[in-house]
């Protein structure tokens, strides 16, 4: 028992003395765990559960990803601290402590740490959670929340505690196995030996391999894949790029500086002499953290850009689905199968008048659209495939150009033998200058068109000159359709009336339906109708997508914590390495200012590298994330680009602030000696 007390004391003393490493560690992991707490508490929250089922599922996925990240941070930081303490362990060994004893001290430290993290994360999580609970509800556009609807979650506490216990066990075992007390002298000299430069030819091979992997990943992210398969492609591309990032960082940088060093004229200049070889020395170790920085930073930008992009596109998306307050869709059986009739046209015109005359509605606009699945053949002909499996085909949306212009404030002008064509996947339209539909061939004008996002597949939008052309196409295209059992999408010519309300409160329930039935009752037509109200739809899409922003914000906070930890620990590790070097250089006759100037420059170069990789990765990932976002909402490329810029600026800001803050620690440690 007394022995245990000694260990407890020793562990506590050690923890106190390692403030530089331990305080950021506890704060960062504590914060990461509090975020996990909040997430689990929200998933567990009755108020949320009742209202946003989809969000709960999304958050569960988010919580799993976050859990993995948090676990990695925890292990990374703990192991970093461990590696910085080799000398201390070697001294224990020299004083005659056994592995078991050192292991016990480490175990006690781990347990104390875990308790501290659990307390911190639960406290912060509970308080911060209340604030974020309100924020989440704002994002989902629920207005009637009370703070008391976010009670303390014992479930979240229990899960966090469980994770911490599991991690502590892993850590203790890991530390025990890597504890090497047999050769203490070697440990004492560890920073001097065992870090030999890799052979150049090996570096060339690995570096080129890494570059190849990155470029392959980039290529994959750009290439044509159907939206459904692109998730899979994205995962593969991501893995390739991540591996490539590590290989390139670990090898190419060192090769560059080796190259510089072999240029004698350049190398044997005072500042180059010190900085080139200093860089090479730094590059022998810790390059993994540079690669990790690049990966994390890329993650931050992508997560922020995509989640913000989705959120700020919601209104755009809403507008493209619901140009006005109300939307009345009418599908006439006669219209299908190419038997479009003049009467239908007249009836719709009459209906338009009826609505305009109603005291509740105003600003009625006519519109017609046709939706059908199909593909484009080699000889540029539209092929109808009702049994088409959606992995290879597209969805075609035909739309009247005037209605489109009015809806989106555009001024496309086309002749009756022309089409304006746009798609949510540019690859589909590559080289398409004409399009044959039935027996007619149309000239194709390419344009970026707003495409409703309700269809999570590749979609081609085609603007036609007038309703007659649409009917023409309908006749040519739909007359051969025979409905079958396996049909996924019904081809349909939809006639739409969009209109606004005078006062949303006063519209009686079923008013639109009443007007339609009155007008069409005697016509003998077979028809079906669908009345959509924008405000109701808004509620739906915010519920579906508002949570994405929320999860995105949290995921990016966790990633930013990761960036912070890696930058900070990298600086501390560098400082510890540089301490002895700096004092020797001074003794040999190097001005203090020059040393500081050079080390500053080196650190800057070192930390710019991950940024270069990050921005390269982000640019490469842009098309595929655009596609992913297009699946959920109908983003405008300008808004989407803006959210990317925003995310980039945010990352730069975080990066430089953390860099500046932690370089203070660096100089303090270096000068200390």
């Amino acid at each position, binding site marked *: 028992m007394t022995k245990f007390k000694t260990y407890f004391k020793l562990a506590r003393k050690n923890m106190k003395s390692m403030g530089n490493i331990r305080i950021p560690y506890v704060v960062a992991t504590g914060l990461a765990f509090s975020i996990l707490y909040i997430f689990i508490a929200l998933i567990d929250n009755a108020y949320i559960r009742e209202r946003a089922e989809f969000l709960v599922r999304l958050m569960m996925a988010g919580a799993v990803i976050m859990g993995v990240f948090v676990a990695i941070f925890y292990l990374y930081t703990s192991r970093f601290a461990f590696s910085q303490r080799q000398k201390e362990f070697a001294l224990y060994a020299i004083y005659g402590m056994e592995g078991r004893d050192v292991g016990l001290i480490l175990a006690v430290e781990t347990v104390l740490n875990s308790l501290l993290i659990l307390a911190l994360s639960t406290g912060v999580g509970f308080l911060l959670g209340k604030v974020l609970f309100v924020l989440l509800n704002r994002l989902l556009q629920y207005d009637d929340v009370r703070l008391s609807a976010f009670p303390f979650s014992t479930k979240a506490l229990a899960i966090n505690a469980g994770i911490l216990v599991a991690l502590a066990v892993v850590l203790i075992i890991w530390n025990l196995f890597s504890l090497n007390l047999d050769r203490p002298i070697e440990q004492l*000299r560890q920073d*001097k*030996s065992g870090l*030999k430069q890799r052979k150049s030819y090996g570096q060339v091979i690995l570096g080129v391999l890494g570059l190849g992997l990155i470029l392959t990943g980039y290529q994959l992210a750009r290439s044509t894949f159907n939206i459904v398969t692109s998730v899979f492609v994205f995962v593969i591309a991501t893995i390739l790029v991540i591996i490539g990032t590590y290989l390139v960082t670990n090898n190419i940088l060192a090769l560059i500086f080796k190259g510089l060093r072999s240029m*004698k*004229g350049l190398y*044997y*200049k*005072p500042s180059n*002499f010190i900085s080139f*070889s*200093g860089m*090479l*020395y730094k590059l022998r170790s810790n390059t993994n953290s540079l690669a990790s920085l690049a990966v994390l930073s890329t993650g931050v930008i992508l997560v922020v850009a995509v989640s913000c992009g989705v959120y700020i596109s919601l209104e755009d998306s809403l507008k493209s689905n619901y140009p006005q307050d109300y939307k009345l869709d009418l599908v006439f059986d006669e219209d299908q199968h190419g038997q479009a009739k003049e009467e239908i046209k007249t009836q719709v015109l009459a209906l338009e008048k009826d609505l305009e005359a109603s005291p509740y509605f105003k600003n009625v606009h006519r519109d017609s659209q046709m939706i059908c699945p199909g593909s484009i053949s080699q000889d540029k002909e539209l092929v109808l495939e009702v049994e088409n499996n959606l992995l290879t085909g597209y969805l075609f949306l035909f739309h009247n150009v005037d209605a489109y212009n009015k809806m989106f404030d555009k001024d496309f002008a086309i002749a009756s033998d022309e089409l304006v064509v746009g798609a949510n996947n540019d690859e589909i339209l590559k080289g398409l200058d004409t399009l044959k539909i039935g027996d007619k061939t149309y000239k194709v004008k390419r344009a970026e068109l707003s495409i409703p996002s309700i269809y999570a597949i590749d979609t081609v939008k085609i603007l036609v000159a007038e309703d007659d052309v649409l009917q023409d196409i309908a006749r040519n295209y739909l007359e051969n359709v025979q409905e079958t059992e396996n049909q996924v999408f019904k081809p349909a010519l939809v006639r739409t009336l969009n209109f606004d309300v005078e006062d949303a409160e006063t519209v009686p329930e079923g008013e639109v339906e009443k007007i339609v039935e009155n007008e069409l009752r005697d016509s003998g037509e077979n028809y079906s109708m669908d009345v959509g109200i924008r405000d109701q739809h808004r509620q739906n899409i915010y519920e579906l997508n508002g949570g994405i922003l929320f999860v995105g914000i949290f995921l990016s906070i966790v990633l930013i914590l990761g960036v912070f930890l890696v930058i900070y620990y990298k600086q501390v590790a560098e400082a510890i390495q540089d301490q002895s*070097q700096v004092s*020797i*250089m*001074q*003794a*040999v*006759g*190097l*001005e*203090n200012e020059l040393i500081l100037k050079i080390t500053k420059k080196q650190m800057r170069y070192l930390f710019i590298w991950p940024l270069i990789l990050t921005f390269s990765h982000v640019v490469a990932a842009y098309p595929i994330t655009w596609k992913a976002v297009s699946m959920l909402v109908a983003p405008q490329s300008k808004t989407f680009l803006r959210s990317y810029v925003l995310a980039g600026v945010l990352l730069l800001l975080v990066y430089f602030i953390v860099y500046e803050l932690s370089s203070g620690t660096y100089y303090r440690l270096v000068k200390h000696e």
Partner: protein
Amino acid sequence: MALLEVKNVGKIYGKKGTASATEALCQVTFSVERGEFVAIMGDSGSGKTTLLNILGSLDQPTDGSVFLDGRDLSTLAKKQISKFRREELGFVFQDYSLLNNFNNKDNILLPLVLSNTPQKEMQERLMAVVAPLEIQDYLTKYPYEVSGGQAQRIAVARAIVTYPKLLLADEPTGALDSSSSQSLMRIFQTLNQNYRQTILMVTHSVAAAANAHRVLFIKDGRIYNEIYRGEDNNVRFEDRIAKSLTLLNGGSLHD
């Protein structure tokens, strides 16, 4: 005029008059002639390293002054000090103090590069020190890839490659076994005899000190005694040094 003149040098660490102040040196006066090989001995904590640091302008005395070649070190501006240290002094430390980020050759060239020496001259000077030190085989290796004795010879090469006026060595054999120590001392002897290199060396080893022309004994920060080699050979000189050490420690010669 002597190459090095130390006049009434005193050094107090910490604030004067406070309880934490330590007087490391007091009224130290001596001089070293050109081409002389002087050893400094004394107990641990007697102030040897402090003295050497002051001579090497790594530290400032609180009292007195040091002249090298007639120039008062305290008048050197901050900027000149690094240059002075680089060009006029050579240092050898107990722990070699080689930089692991350079290979051995670049470690040796470091002071020359810092002084913007032309490449051709650097090469010539390198060749000139490589031969007597027998370090040809280790030049392309890194400091952590060679033995202690080899590393110390690299450190000596770095110290003398600038043809310094004064070579300062703080326990250069402290981390070496006896055969490496002996070979290092032979190198010092050669440098001193063949190249007229002035050397000031702190050592705890009687055998090492016996290579010098003169041994200074320091006790509690003061020069306590000095003995000259005269016509003695190493063995006899060693004997006399040992006896002086015993006296220094307050012992009697007969037990």
